[in-house]
Each structure stands twice: as structure tokens, then as C-alpha cells.
């Protein structure tokens, strides 16, 4: 079963929404979490938070029932605000691990099918897939389409966005699906401008503002010809 975990990473303060296959190990140390359970590959999700143990909890599917199991972590696991050793999870539940709150979305086949139809015509392997919708308040929000078996890692240098490859095979960002534990694909260059995207100290005269992501729909809406700059160059 595939589960989407939506949370704000305490380390980077960035929103994350990886889609992972059960069993899912949650903790702060990638190497401490098991890579295999009963011959099944474990999706390991690393959350850097001082209150989260190196191997904090396990989410697994038992006969169609998704359960979260506390791995004897001192901080424990709260499900919808109640401390639990083991508890069944349903769509929309909120997990609390240390100081990190995680929204659980169960990704079932019914959700995946229309998402794929939104992506029609089928984009190329490297084309990101997304849809844009309008929220109840009328403000534009960007909703990421949940891919079937694609790469959900976030890529981009200036514009953080989903990789969106329809298959993880040959994908350099998730390395054939082996790097699902860290949904963000950061590059060393981001360390040069540590507060990139944050406008605490400078607001350009606009007043306080919050962070924003470049969405894939933005890219699609701005498709234009590539010819003019080549003519400017006079290049052969």
C-alpha cells in the first residue's frame, strides 16, 4: 500500500509530501532503520528532529489495515493527539513524532486513477505532472498529482518542484527508487544562499510575505518558443 506523509521538515522548515510504499520506517538516522522486513524493502523516512529517535516508528499494512507501531521511542507516538503504542491509521489521521506533526493520506487505487487521467496526454518521462485547482477561499493553490510509480522527489535549482518522472527506472534523482527516504533532492549550491526563499530581513517594500514554490502548472502555462535568444546570439 502507498501512503503519502505530509509534514514540514523541522530541519529545513520546508513542506514535504513523499509517497511511500509500506512498510515505512520513521526516524532520525537512516542507517539505524531496517532496510528489509520479512523480505520486503522498507521505505525509510529520515526526519531530523532532536526529539525523534533514530528508529522511532513503523507504519505497516496488516491484512489491509494500516498500523503505526511505536519502536520504544522515549517521546512516543501520538495519533490524533492520543499517545499510542500501536494504532490503526485511516486517511486524514495526524501522527505526532517528537515535534513533528505528520498528516497521513492513504493512497488507494481510486485516487491514483483520475490523477493519471489528468496527466493526459501522457507526458515525456522527464515532464513533471501536476494539476492546479481553486480552493474554497478562491485563492489559487497548487495540488500535486499523485503518480503511479513515478519519482516524487523534488528537484530544481531555482524552482523547487517535483521530478515527476513516470517511472523511477533510470531516474537520477531517486536513483531507481532507492532514495525515497529523503523526498527533497538538494544540491550543495543551496547552501550558498541559506535563506533563499525566505524574506525575513528584506521585504522589498511589500511587507511580510511567505514562501512560495514554483509549480509544474506554472511551467506548462509559460511554454514559449526557444528561437529568439538563439537569433540574438547569431549562433550557428
Amino acid at each position, binding site marked *: 500500500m502507498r501512503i503519502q506523509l505530509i509534514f514540514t521538515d523541522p530541519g529545513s522548515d520546508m513542506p514535504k509530501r513523499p509517497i511511500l510504499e509500506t512498510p515505512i520506517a520513521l526516524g532520525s538516522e537512516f542507517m539505524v532503520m531496517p532496510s528489509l522486513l520479512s523480505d520486503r524493502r522498507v521505505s525509510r523516512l529520515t526526519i531530523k528532529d532532536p526529539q525523534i529517535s533514530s528508529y522511532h516508528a513503523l507504519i505497516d499494512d496488516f491484512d489491509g489495515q494500516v498500523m503505526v507501531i511505536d519502536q520504544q521511542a522515549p517521546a512516543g507516538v501520538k495519533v490524533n493527539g492520543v499517545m499510542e503504542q500501536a494504532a490503526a491509521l485511516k486517511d486524514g489521521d495526524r501522527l505526532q513524532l517528537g515535534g513533528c506533526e505528520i498528516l497521513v493520506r492513504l493512497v488507494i487505487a481510486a485516487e491514483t486513477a483520475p490523477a493519471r487521467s489528468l496527466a493526459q496526454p501522457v507526458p*515525456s518521462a*522527464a*515532464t513533471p505532472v501536476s494539476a492546479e485547482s481553486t480552493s474554497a477561499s478562491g*485563492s*489559487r493553490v497548487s495540488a500535486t498529482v499523485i503518480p503511479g510509480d513515478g519519482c516524487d522527489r523534488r*528537484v*530544481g*535549482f*531555482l*524552482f523547487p518542484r517535483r521530478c515527476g518522472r513516470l517511472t523511477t527506472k533510470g531516474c537520477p534523482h531517486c536513483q531507481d527508487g532507492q532514495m525515497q527516504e529523503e523526498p527533497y533532492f538538494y*544540491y550543495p*549550491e543551496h547552501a*550558498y*544562499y541559506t535563506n*533563499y*526563499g525566505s*524574506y525575513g*530581513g*528584506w*521585504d*522589498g*517594500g*511589500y*511587507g511580510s*510575505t*511567505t*514562501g*512560495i514554490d*514554483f509549480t509544474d502548472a*506554472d*511551467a506548462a502555462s*509559460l*511554454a*514559449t518558443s*526557444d528561437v*529568439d*535568444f*538563439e537569433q*540574438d*546570439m547569431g*549562433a*550557428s
Partner: protein
Amino acid sequence: MAVNLATLRDRLTYRNTATPALVRKDMGQLSQIDKQAEVETAKFRKRRNLAATIGTIFGFLAFVTFGLTLLIAVPAIVFAIQTQEKVKYHRRLDLPNYRYQLLNRLLPILERDMRPSGRVAAILQFDPPDNKTKVVRKIPHPRRPGWQIELFEDPWLTLRGRLIDGTRFALTLTQHHQERSGKNVNNKLRIRPRYKGIDLRLELKCLPQRYPNLATIKNPEQAVQLPKGVLLKEIRVDSRTLVLKAKLSEQAHLNFMPALGNFQATPSAVVSPQLQAEAEKNLEDDLHRTIVLMFMSAYQILNLTRMAEQKRA
């Protein structure tokens, strides 16, 4: 496009419009050409030195003894002259590593934010910065009467392309060089070359509908972050253009001296090849860091206009 060796030897310029992946492939080819030229130059230089030494020794012996050693000295000197020509031939393709390596490092970063079919137009020049065609001005030396200073500008990298948001970017790197020349007290001509830093210019032309009210932004220079030793020379913002100019000072790379075409202008204080290689690597790293920060600073400004627009909506 594969690199054409004859054209490269003739013009010492790489020019192509292609996908970043293809341009990087070409950079790999340039790297091979450069390495081959370095090996061949070193080989012929060794032979030339050996032949010149033999020629000098036997020539001296022939002068002292009027002996047959002249039969050895003359061919050795002729061989040394011929080998010098080969050194010159191969040295022409001994390209400055930092130039193609920098482009090779920049392309994968920009490629992440380009459409898969997106192309870049790259012009990379390898001719020495003291080429006479690059003289922009001549001024009298401020302290030495009779001396003059020639100012050179070498725009060795131009890179253009379009990012995924429709913004067109143009990056230009211009290396500054000076040659101070005049006669010394012995009435001999002296030429003193000086590396004078690199100017970086980034121009972004964006779609006004995506980044509205760009011209109204206040204090954009506060969003600019540059490495230490890099000076922000200018920032200009109008309704659809953002221009950033920065200067990488020569003070940050005191050991760096580019390979020069003017033989007489070879610096008197010769830096060891190892130190020179280190200085080139440092320069490449600093350029890379500066360019990355220029792009991020520019987008820190552009994204603010977009956020403000969403906030207003």
C-alpha cells in the same frame, strides 16, 4: 556538434547552440584536446631543451677548439629550433582549464530549471587576454613618465538560454588585463602584465505577467548575496529586466596569471606550475560560487514580486 579541431586551432573559440547535455559533451572533448596538447607540449619542450643544451655545449667547444664538434652543434641547434615550432604548435591548444571546466559545472545546475528540450547558446573564448584585438584603451602611466598602460577586456564566456518559467538569461564574464610598458634606466623595453579581475554580468528578461510590478521593488540590493571579495557593481531593475553586475577582484587570486600570448610580457616573478594550477582552481571555484549566488539573488528578487501579487489576490 563535435568540436572541430581545425576551427578551434584557428579561432580558439568554441561556439554552439545545443542542449546542455550536448554542450557538456563538447566540454569533455575540449578537456581531452587540452590534455593531449599539454602532454605534447611538455614532450617537445623537453626535447627542445635537451637539443639546445647539446648545441650550446658543443658550439662552445667548437669555438674554443675549432674542432669537428661544430658538426654536432649545428644540427642540435637546428633541431632545437624545429622542436620549438612544434612546442608552439601544440601550446596553442593548451587551453585554460578553468574556462571550460566552469561552463561544465554551470550547465547541470541550469539544466535542472530548463525544459528537457531547452537549449543554451554558449560562446567560450580561449585566446590569451593580451591579444591586441582586445585592447580597449591606452592611458599614460600615472607615476612613470614615458610609460603607458594598455587596458584589455576579454569577454571569454557568454551563455544564454531560457529557464522553465520563460525567463531568458544572459551571462557574460569579462576578464580584465593590463600591460604597463616603457623603457627602464638601461633604455630597454619592459612590459609588466597585470591580471585585473573578472566582471560578471547576469541579465534576466522575464515575462511581466509572471513577475508583475518588478520595477516597483525597493532596495533590491539587499537581497543580493555574494561571496567575500566579490563586489556588487550594479543592480538595475525595470518592468521586465533585471541586471546584476559583480566584480571578482584580482586581490582574491594573487597567484593567478593567465597564459599570455605576448612572449615579452611574461611576468618576471614566475609562479610554479603547481601554484598556478591551484590558483586556477580557486578562481574557477569562486566564479562558480559567484554565478550560483547571482542567479539565486536575482530569483530571490523575482519571486518576491510573485508572492506579493498572490498576497494581493
